């Protein structure tokens, strides 16, 4: 027994000796990296530049992170043990900062700001660091990173940057990145003196309708205070003028496309808000003034789902959609069973009673969630923009709203046209007595129809929670617009609601640049009031026997 224990001890000792001696023999890349970091603590700005070059040359995988942290004022060392850390945020005013180990990039706890010292930079150092980081990124295998690096460099392009781009242009294979580099090279060529090269640059830039390019070209057309042109060469001026007008035309076109898209996305919101109403109002003839509050319930459901699963914001939206449908749908069924069914055939009374319900629901969420707005987070996959060409940027959340509206619309249409419930809904709405004679339980159908319309309102609330503040007044602000959409499109016609909502959205956005948002909205409202005079039953009036009963 003793022998064995002693033997084990010996093995451990030997192992420890081997482990300890290795670094002494040859410094590992990590050791060298940390050593360089350590030097940064005391170095002068000039020395820091040297160290930065050394870090880059080492090709250490973390060099990029450390240098960008240094650039962003996020590189600190701890006074107690002189260890260097990257912080998650740059805030020097914060009481404490969260630390990240520069070698592993893992969380290393947090530390009070007092115990940390920032590794400072000056303008000269930052310039060279920016080039260094860009050089790093330009060599990155991911084309997205390379593209971002070039875009970043274009913001303030100087000679060294242009040289770097020229060097990179020869080896770049990705067409997107290459096009971006070409813009940079053309922009820097403008600063040169070689007229043919400048003309070539201008004609290359004329095809890139982005603000930055336009501004740079417009500079060539500026005049000095004494009336002479800044740019002495007439051929360059003429080419620049042609290029600017070409860019302006292209930007107007893209602007039109963008307005159209904004209109579609606003229209989608209107359609989403109105389509549940199109069922309860259009199919059942019930005026539900609490419809907006059912949307509000959907939005609050999204909030609750998010607070229940804070780790999975991305998935929470997908969970919230059915949850909001159920919550709002259930509320709708209760509303129908307890109040509305006693008021069928008395639309004005229904309007008043449901308005009362809307007040109660508003106060209810105020009592539960307070009157303050609640923050609903936008999942990562819904934020950001989709860049189409040089002048057209589409935000993902708008794009998803349009797609989502289309899906909801298609599902609803399918439910009404293809399912047994849809058949029964249509039968009851067309001729209640006959439907009952055929054995349809009309009371049950009423409840289900109302539940369906209300559930859609809840789903609309999920979408709205991504666009506006979630508060007790969320529903109120949409109710008038939704009624307008339904009335405009034609009661009892889902397609009318779709087309009505979309055209209202587009007209609103078309008017906005000329009249401003509020006045544009007033115009639309007044135009609708006038429209109803000439077509009291909307764009697509219901025809046939069902229309008589309205």
């Amino acid at each position, binding site marked *: 027994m003793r022998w064995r224990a002693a033997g084990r001890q010996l093995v451990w000792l030997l192992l420890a000796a081997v482990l300890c001696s290795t670094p002494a023999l040859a410094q590992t890349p990590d050791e060298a990296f940390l050593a360089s970091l350590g030097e940064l603590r005391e170095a002068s700005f000039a020395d820091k530049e040297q160290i930065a070059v050394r870090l880059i040359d080492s090709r250490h995988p973390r060099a990029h992170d450390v240098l960008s942290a240094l650039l962003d004022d996020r590189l600190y060392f701890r006074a107690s043990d002189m260890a260097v850390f990257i912080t998650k945020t740059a805030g020097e005013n914060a009481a404490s900062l969260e630390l990240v180990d520069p070698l592993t990039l893992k969380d290393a706890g947090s530390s009070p700001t007092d115990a940390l010292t920032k590794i400072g930079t000056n303008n000269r150092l930052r310039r060279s660091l920016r080039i260094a980081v860009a050089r790093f990124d330009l060599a990155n295998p991911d084309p997205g990173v390379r593209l971002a690096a070039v875009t970043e460099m274009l913001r303030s392009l100087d000679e060294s940057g242009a040289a770097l781009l020229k060097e990179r242009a020869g080896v770049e294979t990705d067409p997107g990145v290459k096009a971006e580099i070409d813009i940079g090279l053309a922009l820097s060529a403008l600063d040169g003196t070689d007229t043919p090269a400048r003309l070539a640059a201008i004609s290359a830039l004329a095809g890139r309708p982005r603000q930055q390019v336009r501004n740079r070209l417009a500079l060539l057309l500026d005049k000095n205070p004494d009336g002479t042109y800044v740019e002495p060469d007439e051929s360059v001026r003429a080419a620049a003028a042609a290029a600017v007008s070409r860019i302006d035309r292209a930007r107007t076109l893209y602007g039109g496309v963008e307005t159209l898209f904004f209109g579609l996305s606003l229209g989608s919101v209107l359609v989403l808000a109105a389509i549940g109403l199109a069922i309860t109002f259009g199919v059942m003839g019930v005026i539900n003034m609490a419809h907006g509050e059912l949307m509000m319930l959907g939005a609050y459901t999204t909030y609750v789902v998010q607070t229940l699963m804070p780790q999975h914001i991305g998935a929470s939206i997908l969970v919230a959609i059915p949850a909001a449908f159920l919550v709002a749908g259930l509320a709708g069924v209760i509303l129908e069973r307890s109040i509305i069914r006693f008021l069928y055939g008395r639309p004005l009374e229904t309007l008043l*009673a449901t308005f009362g319900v809307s007040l109660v629901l508003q106060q209810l969420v105020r009592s539960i969630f307070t009157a303050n707005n609640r923050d609903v987070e936008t999942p990562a996959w819904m934020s950001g923009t989709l860049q189409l060409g040089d002048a057209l940027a589409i935000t993902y959340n708008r794009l998803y709203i349009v797609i989502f509206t289309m899906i909801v619309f298609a599902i609803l249409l399918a439910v009404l046209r293809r399912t047994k419930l849809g058949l029964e809904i249509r039968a009851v709405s067309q001729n209640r007595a006959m439907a009952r004679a055929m054995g349809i339980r009309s009371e049950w159908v009423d409840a289900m129809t109302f539940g369906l319309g209300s559930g859609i309102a809840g789903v609309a609330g999920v979408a709205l929670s991504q666009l506006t503040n979630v508060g007790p007044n969320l529903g109120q602000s949409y109710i008038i617009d939704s009624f307008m959409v339904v009335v405009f499109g034609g009661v009892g016609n889902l397609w009318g609601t779709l087309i009505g909502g979309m055209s209202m959205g587009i007209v609103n956005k078309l008017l906005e640049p000329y009249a401003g948002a509020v006045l544009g909205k007033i115009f639309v409202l007044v135009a609708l*009031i006038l429209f109803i005079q000439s077509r009291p039953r909307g764009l697509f009036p219901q025809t046939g026997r069902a229309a008589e009963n309205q």
Partner: protein
Amino acid sequence: MDGMRGRWASIVEDPGGTSLVGLLLAAAIAVPILNQLVPASSAFHVSTYLLTLIGKYLCYAMLAMAVDLVWGYCGILSLGHAAFFTLGGYAMGMYLMRQIGARGVYGNPVLPDFMVFLNWDKLPWFWYGFNHFGFAMLMVVLVPALLALVFGWLAFRSRVTGVYLSIMTQALSYAMMLAFFRNDMGFGGNNGFTDFKDLLGFDLHKDSTRVVLFVATAVALAAAYRACRAITASRAGRVIRAIRDAESRTRFLGYRVESYKLWTFVFSAVLAGIAGALYVPQVGIINPSEFAPINSIEVVIWVAVGGRGTLIGAVAGAVLVNYAKTFFTGALPEVWLYALGAMFVLTTLFLPRGIMGLIPRASNAR
């Protein structure tokens, strides 16, 4: 039935109305005495706060009567009567703003403060004449009347009825609210008008001015009641009720339904405008939030609670609901919306004819 007898009969058959008018006139005499002559220590003293509060209720009662005339008698559910009320209020407010003169913060003798603040150098054309009380009072009547005339002519001519009409009136009021919120409109943007100094030379902050305003409101309400009663008890009133009950049949009987509806609507809008004009100097402020659709809907619930189709019901409902509102928002602010919401639901479900429906004789007299 000749004219004299008919008029006499309408008074005799209207004991509720007679007592309402009597009550209003009695209040117009008694409340000022209780306010001015009875010492503040006495239990019978009516404070100026209470006097102004009652005056406010009476303005609301007049608005409710206007809504009742179109809804209860003619079957037009207007969800935009707050717009007429507010327009009347704005017309009065414009007069009061001009009366401030050089006593504003910026001391400009012609331009109201908000225009100086917006760097306007002259009065917009639609402000001309509002320094004359008579002209302002004319506008109190004409502006709501004109809006009602244009809107009503368009709507009734193309036979927009029922729920559609309700939603249209609501949209109208909403559009007005958005418009008046804009600074460029020249109506003070979202702050509206306030800081009024005096009316016809009388200081608005003095108790005596407030007493006079109260008396004017009570008398105006009594006169409005008599006018509405005269309409509803007349031959035209019977046609109007026929339209409410069977519009198509009335049309086929040869009556010009659109004209009856239009003039009822216009008259009602004028009443609402006058109510607004009386309201503004008493509360001392007018701003675009008065246009908010919820205000119009609240008026409808006053009428519903009181009993639509009875003018007295409208008055009673307005006073009762507003008293409840004052009480709840003071004592239990969270409960008020629950109470109001419940009132909407319960009245429509269980009291379709309101409080007046509980009194057998009044409901028979409909």
